[in-house]
């Protein structure tokens, strides 16, 4: 039966140890172990590229142990190879939070976010210019990361990171690279509000300023204008759209 054949292949490829019963059912122990290697090597490769710094930081053995454990849960649920590292990261980061240095989870989260930014969906086309009385339109490949460690910087060789709470906006630049830009807490909350896209710029500025107990005075307006100009220049902000009816 094809169903039995298919399930045996699945167990051979992703099981922690292929069973002799499955290999016997499929008919050639040696050749089905070739398939196990082909499947796992391809996935290991893309995961290793996406999380290269994390792998280097925790060592190949620890890294591979998490990957193998994830394989044994059944393998990727995504048809897109580019999303495989994200599925592994979702599984492995909670493990590394328990077992590795405290900054490793931040590093893995930063790397996987940068990977997703590079390969994220196309940008929307705004219907209008950016304006305070319109809802902002942002690039699709923009995320805000709140980190306990400054893992966007390269550490000294062999060293880790000291705690230093850091907020980053990661975005895809014109050369398709994922670029980190530091944000203060108010700017990060503004960007989150703009990503949500359900308020006009004016409404979101008033709400976020109030939440931060910040007066909207000349200094604030000047800094906000600088921030908006920078976001527009970097391609983080694309334009505006009318408020929903």
């Amino acid at each position: 039966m094809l169903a039995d054949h298919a399930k045996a292949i699945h167990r051979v490829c992703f099981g922690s140890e292929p069973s002799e019963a499955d290999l016997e059912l499929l008919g050639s122990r040696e050749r089905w172990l070739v398939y196990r290697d082909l499947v796992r090597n391809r996935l290991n490769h893309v995961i290793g590229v996406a999380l290269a710094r994390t792998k280097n930081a925790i060592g190949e053995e620890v890294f591979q142990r998490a990957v193998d454990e994830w394989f044994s849960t059944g393998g990727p649920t995504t048809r897109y190879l580019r999303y495989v590292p994200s599925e592994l990261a979702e599984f492995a980061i909670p493990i590394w939070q328990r077992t590795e240095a405290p900054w490793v989870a931040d590093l893995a989260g930063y790397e996987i976010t940068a990977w997703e930014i590079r390969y994220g969906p196309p940008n929307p086309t705004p219907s209008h210019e950016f304006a305070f009385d319109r809802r902002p339109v942002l690039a699709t490949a923009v995320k805000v990361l709140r980190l306990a460690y400054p893992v966007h910087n390269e550490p000294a060789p062999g060293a880790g990171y000291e705690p230093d709470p850091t907020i980053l906006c990661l975005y895809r630049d014109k050369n398709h690279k994922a670029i980190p830009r530091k944000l203060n807490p108010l700017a990060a909350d503004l960007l989150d509000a703009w990503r949500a896209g359900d308020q006009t710029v004016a409404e979101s500025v008033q709400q976020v300023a109030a939440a931060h107990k910040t007066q909207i005075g000349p200094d604030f307006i000047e800094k906000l204008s600088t921030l908006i100009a920078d976001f527009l220049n970097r391609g983080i902000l694309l334009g505006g759209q009318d408020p929903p009816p």
Partner: protein
Amino acid sequence: MTRDVAGIGLGLRYDLATELLERTPKNIAWLEIHPENYIDRGGRYQEMLDLAREDWPVITHGLSSCLGALEPFDASYLKELGTFLRDLEIPWHSEHLCLGGVDDRFFHDLLPLPFTEEAAAIASQRLIEMRDAIGVPLALENASYYAPQGPDGLAEADFVVEVLEKADAKLLLDVNNIYVNGRNFDFDPKLYIDKIPMERVVQIHVAGHFVRDDGLRIDTHGEPVPDDVYELLDYTLRKTGPVPVLLERDNNVPPLDELLSEIDELWTIYRNATGVGDAR
């Protein structure tokens, strides 16, 4: 409206793209892409596809909707795929006759089906379902395999023909896969080719493969096309006539000029075998 695809094409791959899209070599007549690498993806891949379409017709070759799976298709994916394919104005789309996943888990590799009547019935039904869902012609591609089949199945060529006829389908004939399978399982690739209904062949793939120390040939698309595969291509084209031929190179990608030399060799074979053919 579809764009004509004829002559020798090349797979558009990230490692090649910068030089390929700058030079736009005239001996490449069309490009092939894997839609899974482009659907809902911005950045460099979106740019690559936009630039490629300015200079070449593009056709598509799927990786993830393999025709041997038992689970129902993901209807939302097929809808998205159909929209993507129709926007590209392709003359046909192709998918592999293999097992790509089980229980909604994906191997990201092409696993062999048993060559049984049951598998042929399932694959042909899936092909019809997928073809109807995407709304463009769909060709199946014969796959390579490395594990021996059970004693109660069909010969591979008979299995492929069974699926083609049950589904009234087109064929993307991969001559490298036939060569690899023939060498791994000791059959004559030309006898396989002789069994194929040539009127169903809409496209041909050629590639190189890796030979392990133990002699097992692995379809890596990571080596130059060997002379035996060129010869099998010539044999095939004399039967099919001038169907488009794609050079697949996915791994161990050499400088573009090396691939262009292989493209030139393919043009020579194509012209000699079919009596027709001009580059762009």
